[in-house]
Each structure stands twice: as structure tokens, then as C-alpha cells.
């Protein structure tokens, strides 16, 4: 029992992130509305970003900005254990940008589809294509 609780405490964060990812993935596959799928896509991407950010977290670490930055280079030693790992943050800044770019393109495409078929529901669009 003790082991289980320890496991739970150490890992519950990851499990919740994965749950979020699966909410997004489910919405992308199962939803019928094109914009809903785009929302799901964004949830999926944000959950992955959350996962990455949590890789960088460090118990007892502070935000990755060095205090007394001005002219103090070398005057006090910086220990790696005191600061949170900045690398995942950098990667995820990039990933957020990618997700907003994808969002823009996806919405533009959805508007194009709507202009042509006058609906955003996938089954109605497919029915219209089949009719022709």
C-alpha cells in the first residue's frame, strides 16, 4: 500500500497529463464537427506541452532567471540544482508557436470548407459529396 501511494505521489501528474492528451485525441477522432476537431487538436498539443514543461520542473528549484544579473557574472557561483531546467521551456515556446500557426491554418481551411458546403458537420459534407 505504501508503495502504491508513493507511486501515486511521484507519478499522478503524468497520469493527468496523459488523460488530457487522450481527451484531445478522442475529440480529434470521434467528433463530427470540424471546428470541434480543431479544439481537440489544440487540447492535445497543450497537453503535450504540459508534459514537456513538467519534465523540466525540479523540486526546490526556482525560475530560470539568474538573480542580480547585472555585472555580477562570476561574482557568485550558480548551481544547477537551484534553478529549474530551462531547456523544456525553450522547446515548448516553439511548440506553442507551432500550435497557434496550425490553428490559424486549420481555421482558414474550415472557413473554406464552410464557404463551399455551408456546414461544418463532417457527415453532412460527406452526404453532399455523395449526392453529386
Amino acid at each position, binding site marked *: 500500500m505504501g508503495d502504491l501511494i508513493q507511486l501515486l505521489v511521484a507519478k499522478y501528474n503524468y497520469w493527468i497529463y496523459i488523460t488530457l492528451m487522450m481527451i484531445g485525441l478522442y475529440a480529434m477522432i*470521434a467528433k463530427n464537427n470540424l471546428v470541434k476537431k480543431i479544439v481537440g487538436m489544440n487540447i492535445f498539443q497543450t497537453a503535450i506541452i504540459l508534459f514537456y514543461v513538467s*519534465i523540466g520542473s525540479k523540486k526546490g528549484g526556482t525560475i530560470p*532567471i539568474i538573480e542580480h544579473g547585472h555585472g555580477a557574472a562570476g561574482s557568485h557561483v550558480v548551481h544547477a540544482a537551484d534553478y529549474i531546467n530551462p531547456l523544456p521551456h525553450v522547446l515548448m515556446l516553439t511548440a506553442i*508557436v507551432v500550435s497557434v500557426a496550425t490553428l490559424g491554418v486549420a481555421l*482558414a481551411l474550415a472557413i473554406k470548407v464552410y464557404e463551399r458546403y455551408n456546414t461544418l458537420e463532417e457527415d453532412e459534407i460527406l452526404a453532399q459529396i455523395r449526392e453529386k
Partner: protein
Amino acid sequence: MKITGLIIAILAGALLIYATADFPGWGDAASPASTHVSPRYIEKTMEETSVPNMVTAVLADYRGFDTMFETTVIFSAGVVCFILLRVFGSEEPKESLYRHVLTGVTIRVRAGGEIPPDSDDFERIDVMWTPFDLIIKTMCRILIPFIQLFGLYVIAHGHHSPGGGFQGGVILGASIILFAISHDLRTALRRIRERIDALLCATGVFIYAGTGALCLLLGLNFLDYAALASILGVDPITARSHGIFIVEIGVGIAVMATMIWIYNNVSSRGKYDEGL
């Protein structure tokens, strides 16, 4: 489809959760991610780039190449939205509305009808027009300069505090979008024309990639800002700091312009006629 989706999601989730068994604990300071590559960033950024904000230093210098392509991604999203949605030489709208400013009377002009002369008396309004709201317009007018000032601060102060080109650029872009929403798209377009906006977009990315190419021409590797030392007249470490600042400005310009560009195209369906 719903069942398939659920099954796929549950299977994928189960696989991912199964793998967490071998992960280091959450927030473990001894995990490989915290001990292999990152300590150098934490301990050496000040010495090597003299930028206190490690995220900025890693973003624009150690992994500056990623960031250049991140800006390119945004730029290509802008171009894709433009190429998909923009309609040139739009046919005359079915009907357009004009408001007589003094009396508040609304005139409806059918296609082919006579358009009121271009004067201060008449004002073109959107079909989905909401009545003139003094509070919103005035508040936005007052707020926007401060938002823009904050955006510039975020870009400029990215070395020492959270923020940088990307965040600042988004804030600057958002201020213009706020202007477009609180007034209307045509007024906003008169401030930043489409062509200027598109050129700014390319210019921003060009500043970034051009800085890198300049380093290459000065004899060092691509994006090695130390090469700028000879031009800027400072030592190589400070040159890195300045180089980061230059590319952050580029990122800011590109992101600002692209956000506006995407908004204009999406909100007006590429007609640049009536916005949100």
C-alpha cells in the same frame, strides 16, 4: 466513429501510462533531464552570453536555429491563410450599410446602388453592426497605447525578465486586433495596410535569418553571434547578448505582423471588407 475513437484513445493512453513506470519521479532533481545537458545552460549562460534569463539565452542563442524556424512557421501560417482566403477584386457586396453621422439614420445600399459621397457625414458600417458605444471605443483608445508600450517593454526586457520577442510581438499584434474589434476592420486597415503588414512579416524573419547569414559572411558559423563583435565594436560575449536582442526584435516584428495578417484574413473571409 465514437467507439473507434474511444478505443484508440484508451489504448494509446494505456501505452503511455504504462511507460510512466520507468520515469523518474515528478520534479526529481536527479533525473537525466536535469543532469545531462541542462546544467551547462544554467551554470554557463551568464559567462557565455551575459543574459540572466536562461530561457532567452537558450532560445535565441544555444538553440537559436530552432527559434528561427519557429518564426518561419508563423510566417508560413500567415502566407497559407492569405493564399487560402484572400479574394482579390472582390465583387460588390450584396448590400452595404451607411450611417449618417449627424442624425444616426442608416441607409441601405443594394448592389449597384449609388454610394454616398466620401465625406465625413456618412460612415460605412458593417452588416452585423452594433450601435455606437462610447465607453468601449474610448476605453480601447486609451488602453491601446499602454498595451503597445507594454509589448515593447516585454521585447526589450526579455534579457532580464520573462518575455521576449515572441510574447511582445503577440501583445503588439493583439493591440491592433483589439483596435480592429473595437472600431472596425476598415479603420484598422487604414492604420496598417495589407501590403505593409505582409512586408513586415517577411522583414521580421529576414532580420533573424539575415543576422545569422551576416555571421556566416563574417567568417564564423551560421548564427554564431560572436562574429558580430567586430561590427558592433564590443567583446564577443556582449556581442552575443546584442545578437540575441537583434533577433528578438525580428521575432517581435514578424509575430506582430503575422497575427494581424491571420486575423484580418480569418475575420473578413479574405474580403478585407467587414471584420468581426
